[in-house]
């Protein structure tokens, strides 16, 4: 669940360009604000006081009015010029973001679900393709080109330290490109209201050094690890026989459901249920027994199982590194 999640801590060229634009806007707007408030304060301070009975000043004083006209004209012209500068800066930032070089890009399909993220790597190559959920790894220094789709309602992809957001809209496909320039863990969260558990729909992006990323890829492409202890074996049997297998996939087993996150390597992820819980043996067992108490409204049903069975399932899933 930890991870950098702040517009002011950019870790890629696009977020950096946006942060520069933000800084320029902040300085300009603060300057304008202070200038106007100071003028207003001085005006109020210096204006003579009156009461409701004071006769209104119905006739204009030509000299005073001319001076006021000049001041107002000057202020409006200054505002227009500043707006033009900001407009220009905005266009430049937009251009910088749109022109990220995409040679050698990592291709990922990101699909939004209520309330989790499905990421498919190398979607066009069945031999190399694999899926993961709610936690993506990307290589440092290489652009990532993501194709965005939604399965049910509108979601929005947003990892503030890497790039601006883009909506995932049912029936439409869009793309977003970004690059992480520093290794680290970057947190993102769905930014378009998507129902009951909009609050619990985080996406972790782990930016690895290229070598680490390649190692991660190799592991992810392998089928799920065989259980090594009796308890883990019992856990796998339970998963295959219980309702888990209806919705989840664990590659190399009878669990081939497509409605819910792919669990082939769930043990390697840092969190459960799209950032709702830390991924520990205890929290896995609790979550499986009663998901609704942690994430009310989620599609996953509770699993009525004996505590020992829950522990076995949790042990098996934890071993799926």
């Amino acid at each position, binding site marked *: 669940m930890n991870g950098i999640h702040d517009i002011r801590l950019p870790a890629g060229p696009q977020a950096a360009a946006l942060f520069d634009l933000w800084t320029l806007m902040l300085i300009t707007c603060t300057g304008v604000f202070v200038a106007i408030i100071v003028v207003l304060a001085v005006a109020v301070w210096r204006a003579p006081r009156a*009461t409701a009975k004071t006769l209104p000043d119905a006739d204009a004083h030509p000299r005073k009015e001319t001076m006021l006209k000049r001041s107002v004209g000057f202020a409006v012209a200054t505002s227009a010029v500043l707006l033009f500068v900001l407009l220009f800066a905005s266009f430049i930032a937009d251009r910088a973001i749109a022109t990220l070089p995409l040679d050698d890009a990592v291709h990922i399909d990101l699909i939004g679900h209520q309330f989790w993220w499905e990421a498919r790597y190398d979607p066009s190559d069945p031999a190399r393709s694999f899926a993961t959920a709610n936690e993506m790894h990307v290589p440092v220094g290489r652009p990532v080109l993501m194709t965005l789709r939604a399965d049910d309602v509108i979601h929005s992809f947003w990892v503030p330290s890497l790039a601006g957001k883009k909506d995932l809209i049912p029936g439409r496909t869009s793309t977003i490109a970004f690059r992480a320039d520093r290794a680290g863990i970057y947190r993102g969260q769905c930014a378009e209201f998507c129902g009951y558990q909009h609050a619990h729909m985080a996406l972790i992006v782990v930016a690895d050094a290229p070598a680490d990323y390649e190692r991660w890829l190799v592991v992810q492409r392998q089928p799920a690890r065989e259980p090594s202890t009796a308890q883990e074996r019992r856990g796998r049997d339970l998963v295959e026989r219980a309702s888990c297998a209806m919705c989840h996939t664990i590659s190399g087993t009878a669990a081939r459901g497509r409605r819910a996150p792919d669990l082939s390597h769930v043990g390697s992820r840092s969190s459960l249920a799209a950032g709702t819980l830390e991924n520990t043996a205890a929290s896995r067992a609790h979550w499986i027994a009663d998901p609704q108490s942690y994430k009310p409204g989620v599609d996953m049903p509770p699993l009525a199982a004996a505590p020992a069975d829950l522990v076995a399932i949790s042990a098996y899933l934890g071993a799926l590194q």
Partner: protein
Amino acid sequence: MTAASGAFPSDAGSRTRARERSQPKKGGRQRLRDGAGAGSRAAAELERTWTDKPGVISFLSANGHKTIGLRFIVTALCFFGAAGVMGGLMRHQLATANSHLVGPDFYNQLFTMHGTTMMFLFAVPVMQGFALYLVPLMIGTRNTAFPRMTACAYWLYVIGGLLLFGAFLSNTGPDAGWFAYVPLAGPQYGIGKRVDVWNMLVTYSEATGLMVAVDITTTILKLRAPGMTLRHMPLFLWASLVTSVMIIFAMPMVMLAANLVQFDRMLGTHFFNPAEGGDALLWQHLFWFFGHPEVYFIFIPALGFISAVIPTFARRPMFGHDAIVLSLIATGFLSFGLWVHHMFATNVPELGKSFFTAMSFMIAIPTALQLFCWIATIASGRLVMKTPLLFVLGFFFILLIGGLTGIMLGSVPLDLQVHDTYFVVAHLHYVLIGGAVFPLFAAIFYWFPKVTGRVLSDRLGKWQFWLFFIGVNLTFFPLHILGLAGMPRRIYTYAPETGWGFLSFLSAAGQVINDLSMLLFAFNVARSLFKGERAPADPWGGGTLEWSVSSPPPACNFFALPVVSSREPLWTPPGNVTHVSGLSAEIREGLTTTVIDALPDTRYAYPAPEIWPFVASLAVTAWLVWSIWSVRGFAWGLILPAIAFFAWYWPDKKESIEEISWETEP
């Protein structure tokens, strides 16, 4: 002596009364006529003609603009309080991480209801209520042009609002957001009747808004006092006119869109279903084409309040009157070209994004121009430091922050970062509270003596102002920073590791101060109604026509309709002709004038109070409620409003004969 007595010969002895059927026909007798020299008998008769009779039927039939306007204002303020409580609940839910004060289901209903109530049941109606109350007084006439339609609008509004709250209290409150994006609000994901209730409510409140807007537009264009040419029209009237014309263009859009969603939900159409060739994004275009101008329906009337308060409290006419009028009109036009800036994250083409960024920046210029004109007026005036002026000064501070963050949000790339985060929540509250609620309080303190005949306590008002000013900044300023720290909107909880706890707590604390300020206001109103200082006709030394009549105004507004020759008729020496005379004192009669030059045009008989607008609103309610629960109700239920409207408009033979006789013998 008068302008109109030439235009309308005073002898009309054979004229018959049109609608006061309770009185026997008095053919041949000299009719009682109004006018400056008409005498006390005519004045008493005029007052009797315009006063509503006591009783429940009469209460439900009332159509005087002061009655309806005040009802709109009071009802809207009640909804403001209710929506404020919801906002407070949300802030307290978010004050700590992983809070269990409310769950996701209730939280989603809360923020949907908060937004819907504030936008549809508070902000637009309260502004229209002020316009209904003030416009006829400011233009020098006795009622609005279509008072029965407006009465019907009020009943639709209050019944629709109560239905929405009834649904909310019975756990059927809408929960898809005040923007109700499909597919979340569509048939597949918006389960139950919650979104249906929202669609119906929107249709209701938009119908209300449209009806009042048509009434105000017509009133301003056709019922101004002789001599009040467009050049002599006060800025408040310009603001009301621009707003009303905007409403006429924008409201039908959202009514249409809400009905299309309802067809999808009810009849199985596929307007927004991508699987069947519909488009989920279409809803957003339709909604925001209305939704962005909506912000300006709230903001522009508030600019009208500011432009009414500043000249009075700076003791000089507004500097740059013409520039402000042009700014208001420009704002009205430009506000229709910005809607896509709510949708920058939806993959808008690059060229389109640049266009809407440029438009969003451009609308800052007319607003800046007005701001500088107001500051120039204050700088060159002599100031009366009373509560209304204080609220105006607070408006400058808060609106300026909201406007500047608005420029940031108008920039596409920056918007892609802060869109749908707490930065936007902060921005929109700065704009709407600074741009509408502060001016609204200025307006309430300014016109309260006119409406009630009592002055609100200035000392309590200043306390309220400072509490509110501090409270609003404490509640909403930290939200900017939360947005930068990545906090998305519309989440019902968050984990402690996110680090959003401290600023959220500050915000909740600010909300408590706001609550105190609102309680102080309620106390001030209650106390002043009974113990407040009695108000003379013109307690602030204002220059526009509403200050020329007693406080509270007589039922007929003016015993003789005024003739004006300047923008601030009470500040400049009167012309040769000061009043219209010769209108009937026995029936509700007024004078229409030409649109541009305000030359006397025709006499106009206002409709008398009738129960039918109320009955029609009940019939429409029955139809809409029935159609929420049954598809058949959608078809068969239409019969009910049809009957009610037929009965309302059914021509009366006697009335028709009398109206023809008026036309032949004016």
